[in-house]
């Protein structure tokens, strides 16, 4: 570089290097991120105003795509399913806490137990989806074997419009609960033993101890569990694609899946319409992102 040979420039560099270094270090990462993540978010907004098949000329149609969404039953089904996902997926948090409390002991082999309980999270959702598809299978699935042994009639979970979304969410809860469990196990490790002893002296036991002394101390773990679970719920795609491909009759679609369907599958290449769905999904997420960032901002200020 020039300033290594030129004496004047070297001193300029020396004087300013503390201001310039962060920008040089940020440049490659920032460029990548802007190009592939930030700009595409805005491009999606722009594209949602066009009718475009991905190849030919894009035609400006204003808010027509949104108007079409307003009358689209499939859109409402997807939106409703997204809400169901958001609500039911949160069950991973108490479930993870429950398993973490169960495993927070020091008996022999407990480390191996903890890793094996965490196992589902490491496996690809594609494989989780396949495994649960067989689990639910109406002809040989172990679920119906169990139901049969209790004298109950068989259920075709993935073929029934009323059950399908819940069935897929249960499959998703399996790895997500494992994730929350590991967060809480780490959190429980850091719980202040003196406060527990003090609580015991005051006669706090069981539920009261958990509620008044343990859970408040687990706040950071709960916050992260909440963040990853919300994001996971809104990103749900793999399981739906593998287990039902949106069916039966579109009953298990969520927004991200429906967007993929209209934009990239055999149903046609409607990029603009897909982008409009993406914008709706983004706006839902924006509420959460704003909340997460606000919480982090408060914490940064407090330091």
């Amino acid at each position, binding site marked *: 570089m020039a300033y290594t040979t030129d004496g004047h420039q070297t001193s300029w560099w020396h004087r300013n290097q503390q201001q310039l270094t962060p920008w040089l*270090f940020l440049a490659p990462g920032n460029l990548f991120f802007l190009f592939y993540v930030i700009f595409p978010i805005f491009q999606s907004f722009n594209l949602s105003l066009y009718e475009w098949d*991905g190849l030919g000329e894009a035609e400006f149609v204003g808010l027509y795509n949104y108007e079409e969404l307003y009358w689209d039953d499939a859109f409402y089904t997807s939106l409703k399913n997204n809400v169901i996902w958001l609500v039911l997926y949160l069950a991973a948090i108490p479930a993870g806490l429950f398993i973490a409390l169960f495993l927070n002991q020091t008996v022999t082999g407990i480390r191996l137990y903890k890793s094996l309980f965490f196992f589902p999270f490491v496996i690809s959702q594609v494989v989780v989806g396949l495994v649960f598809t067989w689990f639910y299978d109406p002809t040989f699935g172990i679920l119906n074997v169990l139901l049969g042994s209790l004298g109950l009639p068989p259920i075709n979970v993935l073929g029934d419009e009323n059950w399908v979304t819940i069935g897929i969410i249960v499959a998703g809860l399996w790895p997500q609960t494992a994730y929350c469990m590991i967060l809480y196990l780490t959190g429980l490790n850091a719980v202040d033993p003196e406060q527990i002893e003090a609580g015991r002296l005051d006669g706090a036991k069981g539920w009261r101890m958990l509620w008044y002394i343990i859970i408040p101390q687990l706040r950071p773990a709960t916050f992260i569990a909440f963040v990853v679970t919300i994001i996971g719920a809104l990103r749900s795609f793999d399981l739906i694609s*593998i287990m039902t491909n949106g069916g039966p009759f579109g009953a298990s679609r969520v927004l991200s899946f429906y967007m993929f369907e209209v934009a990239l599958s055999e149903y046609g290449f409607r990029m603009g319409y897909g982008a409009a769905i993406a914008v709706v999904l983004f706006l839902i997420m924006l509420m959460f992102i704003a909340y997460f960032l606000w919480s982090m901002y408060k914490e940064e200020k407090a330091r």
Partner: protein
Amino acid sequence: MFPTPIERTRRSWQITYQTLLPLALILWLLPLIAVAIFSVKPDADFANANYWGWPSSFEGFTNYGLVFTGSDMPQYLLNSFKITIPTVIGAVALSCMTGFALGIYKFRANIWIFFMFVAGNFVPFQILMVPVRDLTLQLGLYNTITGLVLFHIAFQTGFCTLFMRNFIRALPFELIEAARVEGVAEWRIFWFVVLPLMKPAIAALSVLIFTFIWNDYFWAIVLTQGVESQPVTAGITSFNAQYRAAYHLMSAGSIVAALPPVAMFFMMQKHFIAGLTLGAVK
């Protein structure tokens, strides 16, 4: 410790706990155990509707052999490695730099750039689908491993920056000040002072990103098609189409596809969990 340590409880509860533990584990992993048993069963068991019984003969070698010789599985596995390893290197390298810049230096835009990475990382990435696919097409990288890797690096940089920056913030700042007093150039501070201290963070991120990218399915089907570039998560669906209703082979294929991140997890467990739970304690 909460709950009460088991050795301080009644004898009856101790025994109950010791029996409950393995039972709970078996129940929790039941779907996986079923697949593992499926994968060593002979074809005939499925024809005879012996789904949940004991395998009538052990056909593990035949089934797994067929996965490797009778399908495109080896190619898909190779592709997965070719996608995952460069992504891990790229994302970790970029985020060491961004994390250093955001963790060490104080400047006005710092927190906003940091929040840009965090917010981008929280986005349901499906909304990037249409523009990113178009961008990749225009770069002539559609259906190439490079195209997939570039996107993965960019997206993972968000999470990695969050991670690295918080890690660097926790390092003793006096070290950097001391080096500055000595007149050490800033890039040398990065290379000789900060980077050696970041080894645990680099290890943790590497295993995490390896798992995330290996298990990616969405971008694999959006940005690639066909045996020459698709990773094993996408390949498993064509594998299943090839062996429709051959449950023993589909199970064996799934286990093969799931194995590398599982092996990674068990080898690097400490780092993996440290990475995943960063921020879960104060």
